[in-house]
C-alpha cells in the first residue's frame, strides 16, 4: 500500500497516469468515440446535459460512461486509501458560476484541456490557439492568486453528503443501461453526429473507472500543471500532461488517426480568435476554481461538494450554451458565443478582484 502511494506521488507515477490516459483516449476513439474526442470532460458532460433533455441539440446527446467512471473510480480509490472526506461550503454559488462559464468557454473552443491536448496529438493545429488561450487564462488566474484571491475555507460535513455526487452518477448509469422509454421523452440519445459515436458501454465504463482511480491517486490536473509552472516553477503535474500528449500522439500514429492541418478537422472550427478566447475564459475559470474539469470530477468522488457543484455548473452551462446558440459547431462560432465569452470574462475578472484577502 505504502509503495503504491509513493509511486503515484512520484514524477514517474504521474507520467504513467498521463500516458495511460493518452493511450486509452486514442483507443476509445478507435473503439467508437468521436474523432479527436476519445475523452473530453466538457463535451461528455455536455452530452449528458443533452441526454437529460436540458438542451435539444440532437447531435450531442448521450450519457457518457467515462464521466460516471471518473467519479466512481475516484470514490473507490478514496475509500481504499482513506481519503474520502466529505466537505462543503467554500463559496458554492461562485463555484457553480465558474463551472457554468468554464463550460461556455470550452464549448466556444470545442473541448476541455484534455481534448485540446488530444486534438493536438491528432494533428489539429487549431488546438494550439486553444492551448495558448488556456495558458493565458491560467496565467491571469495566477495573477489573482498572487494578489490574495481566495474562495475561502470549506467545512467537514456529514458522510452522506460526500455520497451525493457518486449516487447521481449511479443514477445516470441506471438511466444509461435501462434507457427508459417514457412518454415525456425523458432520455435522448443522438442518432447521428458525435453523440451517436461511442465505444461499447462496458469498455468506456471500465476505462473511466481505472482513470478515476489513477487520477485520484496521482492528483492529475491539466490546469494545475500550467498553474504550478507559472506560480512556483513546479513541473510535477506538467509531467503528467506531457505523458497524455505523448501517449495519445504515439497511439494516434500507430492507429492512423494523425492528420495534420487546420481545415476540416473533426468537431472543430478554425476561428483563431475565438479558439483562443474560449479557452482564455475556460482557463481563467478553472484557475479560479482550483482545478480542470477532470480534476473537479475526481475531487467530487472524494467527497468534495464544492467540486460537485462546479460540475453541475458545467452541465447547466452546457445546456445554456446550446439553447442560446453560444456553443460552436464545426461550421463555426455560435451567434452568441463571443458575447457569452465576454460576459464570462467580466464575471471571472470581477470575482478575481472582489474575492481578495489583503496580503
Amino acid at each position, binding site marked *: 500500500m505504502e509503495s503504491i502511494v509513493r509511486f503515484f506521488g512520484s514524477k514517474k507515477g504521474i507520467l504513467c497516469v498521463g500516458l495511460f490516459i493518452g493511450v486509452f483516449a486514442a483507443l476509445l476513439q478507435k473503439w467508437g468515440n468521436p474523432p479527436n474526442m476519445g475523452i473530453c470532460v466538457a463535451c461528455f458532460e455536455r452530452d449528458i446535459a443533452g441526454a437529460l433533455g436540458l438542451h435539444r441539440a440532437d447531435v450531442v446527446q448521450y450519457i457518457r460512461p467515462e464521466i460516471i467512471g471518473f467519479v466512481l473510480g475516484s470514490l473507490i480509490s478514496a475509500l481504499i486509501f482513506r481519503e474520502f472526506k466529505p466537505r462543503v461550503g467554500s463559496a458554492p454559488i461562485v463555484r457553480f458560476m465558474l463551472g457554468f462559464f468554464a463550460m461556455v468557454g470550452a464549448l466556444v473552443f470545442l473541448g476541455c484541456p484534455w481534448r485540446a491536448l488530444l486534438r493536438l496529438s491528432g494533428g489539429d493545429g487549431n488546438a494550439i490557439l486553444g492551448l495558448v488561450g488556456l495558458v493565458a487564462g491560467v496565467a491571469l488566474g495566477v495573477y489573482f492568486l*498572487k494578489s490574495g484571491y*481566495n474562495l475561502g*475555507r*470549506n467545512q467537514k460535513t456529514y458522510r452522506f453528503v460526500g455520497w451525493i455526487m457518486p449516487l447521481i452518477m449511479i443514477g445516470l448509469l441506471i438511466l444509461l443501461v435501462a434507457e427508459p422509454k417514457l412518454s415525456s421523452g425523458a432520455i435522448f440519445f443522438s442518432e447521428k453526429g458525435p453523440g451517436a459515436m461511442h465505444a461499447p458501454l462496458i469498455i468506456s465504463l471500465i476505462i473511466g473507472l481505472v482513470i478515476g482511480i489513477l487520477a485520484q491517486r496521482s492528483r492529475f490536473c491539466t490546469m*494545475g500543471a500550467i498553474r504550478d509552472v507559472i506560480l*512556483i516553477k513546479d513541473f510535477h503535474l506538467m509531467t503528467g500532461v506531457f505523458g497524455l500528449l505523448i501517449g495519445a500522439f504515439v497511439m494516434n500514429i500507430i492507429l492512423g488517426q494523425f492528420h495534420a492541418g487546420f481545415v476540416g478537422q473533426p468537431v472543430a472550427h478554425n476561428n483563431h480568435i475565438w479558439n483562443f478566447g474560449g479557452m482564455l475564459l475556460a482557463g481563467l475559470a478553472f484557475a479560479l476554481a482550483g482545478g480542470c474539469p477532470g480534476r473537479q470530477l475526481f475531487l467530487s468522488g472524494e467527497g468534495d461538494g*464544492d467540486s460537485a457543484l462546479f460540475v453541475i455548473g458545467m452541465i447547466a452551462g452546457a445546456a445554456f450554451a446550446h439553447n442560446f446558440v453560444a456553443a460552436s459547431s464545426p461550421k463555426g462560432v455560435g451567434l452568441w458565443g463571443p458575447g457569452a465569452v465576454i460576459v464570462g470574462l467580466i464575471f471571472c475578472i470581477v470575482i478575481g478582484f472582489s474575492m481578495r484577502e489583503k496580503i
Partner: protein
Amino acid sequence: MKGEIKMAEKVDARGLSCPQPVINAHKKMREMESGTFEVLVDTTTSRDNVTRMATREGWNVEVRDEGEDILLVLRK
C-alpha cells in the same frame, strides 16, 4: 522579547483548497527565510503539495498525524 522560547508559528491551511495551502506556506517561508514553523492541513493532497514545494525550496519537512488533521513541521 529576545531569548524567550517562542511557540513555532503556525499556518492554518485547513479547509483551503488547492493551491491555497501551498501559497500560504510559501509566503511564510519568504517572510522567515529560515527557522521553524508549522503548517496544519486536512487533506493528503495538501500535505503532499506543501511537502513537495518546501523540500524543493530546501526546507526539511516532518509530518505528524493529529487526529483528522496533519501537522507539517518545516525547518531550515
